[in-house]
């Protein structure tokens, strides 16, 4: 197990190095004057230019600049935003809880609906339930989520007035200090009446929108995995000894069918964050996805660079953890390769 762990860890080192190299190159490749790109200053005097070049280390050889960049990253220096002049690490972690809250809720929604849907479809193979559920799942899988979000706003908010259109909480009515950064928890801590429900109401539509594609994937995956397991001998044995169907399906089959599904859920963090970019933009959700898009609009390239570095590192680390846990549960993976 220890060797497996070491090998997996060693494999991520080159990926991290390459990621640092790509983000380092990115800011040199974007069109425009490097000083302007990095500091947002334009039309400056030659003396100031030389001063800035020296200050930012641009007069150093490229390999030295890269080493400085890596050194900075390792010490938590992800650069400074052109617009707000704040350290990017600080901005990122100020917004990140909003993205985490949304993503966790979406994944919960997708799992809690997707797995039962897949199980029902598999146990009624070929029947009306199966066809309907899988038809819906394929539609969800094909959904342009930015359109889906707007349609839901149109129906739920504008027509029925059930849910708010944007943001995380009604700032006019409620104000409470940010403790964890997760609105659901902070609103409970604050003890203000109605604050929790308000935060929940704001979460509903974004959760549905971001959860739609993972939900479809989980439902399809659960169904095919269940179908495979239901053919196994031990399921037949369980049936033969007279266990009620819900026990056979719910316990004997489901437990084994869930292994690939859990992996899929764990490894969907990357696609979830990609979806969060669109979802946050539609619902003005103040998370890192919206922040990235706005950084492009403001030509805030250092923010973009730092943001991509941080998001990708997060995905690499989560995938690593999923892999390791999977290896822990399933020894066959550990010894393969």
């Amino acid at each position, binding site marked *: 197990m220890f060797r497996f762990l070491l090998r997996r860890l060693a494999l991520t080192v080159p*990926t991290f190095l390459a990621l640092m190299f790509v983000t380092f190159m990115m800011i040199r490749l974007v069109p425009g004057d490097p000083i302007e790109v990095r500091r947002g200053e334009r039309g400056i005097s030659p003396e100031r230019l030389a001063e800035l070049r020296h200050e930012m280390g641009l007069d150093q050889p490229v390999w030295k600049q890269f080493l400085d960049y890596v050194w900075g990253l390792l010490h938590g220096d992800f650069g400074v935003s052109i617009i707000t002049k704040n350290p990017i690490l600080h901005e990122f972690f100020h917004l990140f809880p909003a993205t985490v809250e949304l993503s966790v809720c979406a994944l919960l929604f997708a799992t809690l609906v997707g797995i039962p849907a897949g199980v029902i479809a598999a146990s009624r193979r070929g029947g009306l339930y199966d066809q309907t559920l899988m038809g819906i799942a*394929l539609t969800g899988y094909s959904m342009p989520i930015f359109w889906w979000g707007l349609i839901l706003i149109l129906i739920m908010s504008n027509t029925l007035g059930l849910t708010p259109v944007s943001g995380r909480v009604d700032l006019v009515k409620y104000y409470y200090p940010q403790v964890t950064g997760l609105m659901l928890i902070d609103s409970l801590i604050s003890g203000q009446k109605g604050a929790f429900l308000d935060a929940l109401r704001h979460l509903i539509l974004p959760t549905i929108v971001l959860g739609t594609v993972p939900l479809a994937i989980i439902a399809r995956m659960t169904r095919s995995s269940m179908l495979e397991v239901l053919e196994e001998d031990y399921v037949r044995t369980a049936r033969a000894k007279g266990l009620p169907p819900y026990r056979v399906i719910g316990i004997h089959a489901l437990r084994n069918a869930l292994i690939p599904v859990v992996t899929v859920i764990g490894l969907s963090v990357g696609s979830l964050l990609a979806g969060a970019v*669109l979802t946050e933009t539609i619902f003005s959700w103040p998370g890192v996805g919206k922040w990235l898009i706005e950084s492009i609009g403001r030509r805030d390239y250092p923010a973009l660079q730092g943001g991509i570095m941080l998001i990708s590192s997060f*995905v690499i680390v989560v995938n690593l953890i999923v892999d390791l846990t999977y290896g822990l549960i399933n020894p066959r993976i550990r010894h393969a390769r």
Partner: protein
Amino acid sequence: MPVDVTLPTQRTANPPGPLLAFWHSFRENRGAVIGLTVVSAVILIAIFASVLAPYDPLDQFRDFTRLPPIWSEGGNWNYPLGTDPLGRDMLSRLMYGSRISLFIGLSVMVVSMITGVVLGLAASWFGGIIDVIILRIMDLIMSIPSLVLAILIVAIIGPNLTNTIVAVTIVYLPRYVRLVRASALSELSKDYVTAAKVSGVGPLRLMFVTVLPNCLPPLIVQAALGVSDAILEAAGLGFLGLGAQPPAPEWGAMLADARDLITSHPWVMALPGIAILITVLAINLMGDGLRDALDPRLKRS
């Protein structure tokens, strides 16, 4: 003593050719056939857009702005799906939009498949350091969330139609590389490959003529699903203002344009999304059918 062994001559019908066998199992899947029909229709619309569309997609009819579709009150038969705030005919724009989306989807699929086949075969044939380098690069691409990577690439090379294709191609490349590499590796250990090697087949011929055809079934399925993913991804980029630029009638960009009209003129916002959904859904239905027909092991998932 020589024994005269004459086997009874069997008279069997010729087995159906591979194409026919494929069609038979594809046809059984009702969803797949519906998907194929819709996809064909969309392709025809895209090809003949200039004949079918009533107007030019960029023509502005200033006297007829914001007309609703014919089924709602105030609709005008001259503009069956209504007009947008600039008086452009929605039907014509949607028809021309299918050209852009299909073009993006198909070019991404072709380019990433060719590159993926070459890199995947190279990785499996050479092994060693080349294999490791190719795999590490693919790992890196996959560690960055797809849309974020596309945004990064577009931020560097600028937003337009060609760059959308470049960005989405890079995003989807790893799937093809890993698929080709994995199936080529398993093929390379088989006897027919050894036989081909012994009979003196050169590496290029061996990889592309002997091994590649045996890796095709999963690759074809991936290619079909790759088209629909590429269309979705490109529409997402267009929606964020990072894809095809207005006034091009790209579906994602049309949707973004119509965001502010969501309460006043919902159809301008709804129609491009429906077009995306129908196209992508039809391709996915077809892809599912392809998988069932080509690769019985993968079943229907």
